[in-house]
């Protein structure tokens, strides 16, 4: 009997495709997310918007918080650890969490090395802004990629930028010769094997979600039409006026992302979305997407 194989890790990620992964901070929110149709919940101490507001060092959640959420739902539970903090990852794995997000939303613990994700039984998801970053994370063992976007802003512009960048880089690979692929590997600082595999498949070799700033059903459908396999919604749900309604609407819009009539219907009378932040107002050194490399 084999545990923790690449097939099992990447397979787990494949089962989330077409779904919405929602940030939750307690059992009550987790139950609301599950009832609304979340494919998984991300157990956190604070949603990104509150992490941004609080400042200071953001770390993995208290184990009691994670356990509370694990006990509250039947769907898979994910949790975030700091970039490079492999002991936080060991702790999260020992709690029984299903997937780890090595996340730029928390304060990085290592400025040189991401976690060696091949050393873990459970799979990891990591953020990326471009093809090279995505392939480097996959090379380190990530079983799933998500765009970084700019978490906690309710502003989808950065997630769009990152998704478009990754998709257009993949499209460019299509007609390249062997030597040209070598050059791409060098320029993007990513392993040749993964560059070739991406060119062959015409997509990232692992599941690729959108994250960072998705706040409305239309945002979710936009990311799906841009080629995302699914979406993470962080602050967008529980910082809105009607979390239950917004959560249900985003699930529907993610499934039926090409059906404008349905998106119109589910977007009607949702109340106030989370307040958004203009990316230009965030000083560059406070942008979460700049964390990691």
């Amino acid at each position: 009997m084999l545990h923790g194989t690449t097939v099992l890790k990447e397979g787990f990620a494949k089962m989330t495709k077409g779904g919405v992964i929602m940030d939750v901070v307690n059992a009550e929110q987790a139950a609301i997310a599950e009832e609304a149709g979340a494919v998984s919940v991300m157990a956190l101490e604070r949603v990104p918007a509150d992490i941004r507001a609080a400042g200071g060092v953001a770390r993995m959640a208290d184990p009691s918080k994670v356990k509370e959420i694990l006990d509250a739902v039947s769907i898979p539970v994910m949790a975030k650890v700091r970039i490079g903090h492999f002991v936080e990852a060991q702790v999260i794995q020992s709690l029984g969490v299903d997937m780890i997000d090595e996340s730029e939303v928390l304060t990085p613990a290592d400025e040189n090395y991401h976690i060696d994700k091949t050393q873990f039984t459970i799979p990891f998801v990591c953020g990326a802004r471009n093809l090279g970053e995505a392939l480097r994370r996959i090379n380190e063992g990530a079983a799933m990629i998500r765009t970084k976007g700019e978490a906690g802003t309710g502003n989808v512009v950065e997630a769009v930028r990152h998704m478009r960048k990754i998709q257009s880089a993949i499209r460019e690979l299509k007609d390249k010769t062997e030597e040209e692929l070598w050059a791409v590997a060098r320029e993007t600082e990513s392993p040749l094997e993964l560059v070739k595999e991406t060119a062959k498949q015409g997509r990232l070799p692992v599941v690729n979600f959108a994250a960072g700033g998705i706040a409305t059903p239309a945002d979710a459908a936009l990311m799906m039409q841009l080629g995302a396999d699914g979406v993470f919604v962080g602050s967008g749900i529980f910082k809105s006026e009607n979390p239950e309604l917004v959560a249900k609407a985003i699930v529907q819009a993610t499934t039926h992302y090409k059906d404008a009539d349905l998106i119109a219907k589910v977007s009607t009378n949702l109340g106030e979305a989370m307040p958004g932040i203009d990316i230009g107002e965030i000083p560059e050194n406070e942008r979460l997407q700049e964390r990691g490399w």
Partner: protein
Amino acid sequence: MSTQAHRLEGIEMIRIGILDLQGDVSEHFKITEKSLKNMNIESQVLKVKTASDVSACDGMIISGGESTVIGKLMEKTGIKKEILTKKIPVMGTCAGMVLLSTKTDYEQSLLGLIDMKVKRNGFGRQRSSFEDEIEIFGGKYKGIFIRAPYVSEVGDDVEILASYQDKIVAVAFGNHIATAFHPELTDDTRIHEYFIKEVLNCVE
């Protein structure tokens, strides 16, 4: 060959629908196309997103994913009602097995097409997910179990196709088939081909 040609007499082509609400849909799509090609059957594989899509299908496959999510969306789209009205053969893997059952240990929307009780995540959380050799159709098979369920009780007429560590992991009932593991994550088409034969029997 002759039996198959006979079976297909008078049938223009068969259409297999892959439920496309959530889960590893593209993996099922690919292996279903491959199976149909192996069997040399004139066919079409469709993605099913609405109730009206169901009416074009001779058989349907429900992928792995989250059974709670797929169940809710099947209800909302009217797909559930359409499947039950149309009475077509359905194959389910993992979440699909849960949805085919009559009962689980959790309150959720089910199709109830196979007389069985299913224990969701019966083998544990993701850290307990596993790959191991199992036996099915009298041969070895690579079982990929991801937060997999197992069947805890079956009705009298349910055929047990495979068990693993004394737990039932694959069943057939009427023209329906369910597995706790993921044939769509392998290159092995045996289980899909078995299902396609069931669909052919029905179309006849």
